């Protein structure tokens, strides 16, 4: 087996298309997970157990089952119930839901870290529940948890090859179809690894910056 640079040059544009999809899926999945996670964290704090219990159970269920199974369910089973999604949308929802349940735990810790006196001061100032969350609690809780959230989103990025199982043409899927068509695996698969490594390393540098910027309070 010999490394063929001309083959590399030939397949690079296709792989870059895959990289784009991978990055789009990660970014959209991260935004979705960040929102879903916050919603889960807030709802689970509800004093009404009829609301907090089912959501808590659902979150544990999602966290306790493999992402691959969830992706199959969303893409291949939901159409039987009349919900048909494009591969990328199904993939983003799957990533967002799965990592949203992890993000919810980060939010929970961050929210618990806000001193009880802040809730009490908000009440003494006669703020509504909503104002208490948006003006007092979340502005204090969110910055310290940004590095932990970013960590999960880097992990999510490395899980995106799972989306190839539901026909999303992300990097891994593109590489595999090139490889299967040309009977050459070494270049496409090595390049996939290289792409992931470079983007991960860049992300980690970004993460360190976030930690310095937001990790400390005061």
């Amino acid at each position: 087996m010999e490394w063929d640079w001309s083959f590399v040059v030939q397949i690079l544009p296709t792989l870059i298309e895959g990289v784009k999809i991978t990055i789009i899926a990660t970014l959209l999945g991260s935004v979705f997970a960040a929102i879903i996670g916050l919603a889960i964290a807030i709802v689970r704090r509800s004093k009404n157990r009829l609301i907090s219990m089912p959501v808590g159970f659902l979150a544990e269920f999602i966290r306790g089952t493999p992402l691959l199974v969830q992706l199959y369910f969303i893409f291949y089973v939901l159409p039987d119930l009349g919900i048909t999604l494009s591969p990328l949308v199904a993939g983003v929802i799957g990533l967002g839901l799965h990592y949203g349940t992890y993000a919810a735990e980060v939010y929970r810790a961050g929210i618990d870290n806000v001193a009880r006196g802040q809730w009490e001061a908000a009440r003494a100032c006669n703020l509504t529940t909503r104002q208490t969350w948006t003006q007092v609690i979340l502005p204090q809780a969110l910055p310290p948890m940004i590095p932990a959230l970013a960590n999960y989103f880097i992990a999510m990025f490395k899980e995106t090859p799972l989306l190839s199982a539901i026909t999303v043409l992300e990097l891994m899927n593109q590489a595999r179809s090139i490889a299967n068509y040309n009977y050459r695996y070494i270049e496409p698969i090595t390049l996939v690894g290289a792409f992931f490594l470079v983007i991960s390393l860049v992300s980690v540098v970004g993460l360190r910056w976030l930690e310095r910027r937001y990790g400390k309070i005061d």
Partner: protein
Amino acid sequence: MPPSNAAPIIEIDGISKSFGAFKVLNDLSFSVKPREKLALIGPSGSGKTTILRILMTLEGIDSGTIRVDGDNLYQMERNGKLQPADESHLHRMREKIGMVFQLFNLFPHKCVLDNVTLAPMLTKGVSRRDAEKHAMELLDMVGLADKAKSMPSQLSGGQKQRVAIARALALKPKIMLFDEVTSALDPELVEEVLNVLWRLCRETDMTMLLVTHEMGFAHDFADRVLFFDRGRIVEDGKPDEIFRHPKQERTQAFLKKIIAAGHRV
């Protein structure tokens, strides 16, 4: 201004409160007149802080009733029946009451000025311009106008507490609750906070309830002193009566301990 003889602004009638098996307040009753300056003293765990927290609706009660400014605090009438108060009732009631905490509880992510303007703008719809104008007057009154743009983390404890007082005043409450507001301060910072309380006491007609271990200040500040022990009022009287001629043994024992600990009475 002397307390008025009008109907009480706070009427506490037979309230009890337990935390688990510990009964903090036991069938407690007392009332407070408008403009009255009331000092609540007593050993820790005697329930005096819990009363303030209940009035601020930070804790509920197990039984009894509380009327504030004529309205039932924890119950509301609906279809002719008394029902537990809902959030909008509590919201209306809280407009009458302000509280300053032992640990200041300033919003650390907002500058001093924003700490003071936040609640009036959000809860009363005051414009930013008016809220800031009023806030600057209050900060000037507590001697911190030059710190308006500082963050709370840049202030000393005494400065933080003075901002917290300005923040509570910004909502113009009829009743102010001060919960051991100097207990967390270094000794040399106590006086600057007491001076502000002193001015409020002299220059405003708010009703004020003060939980404190500063007996000398309580003596000068209060129209009336309540001595608490184990969730009950043991003695209720004018400052001179309580501090100079306590009738109850438990009051005498408590004051002796406090004096032994070096506090001025």
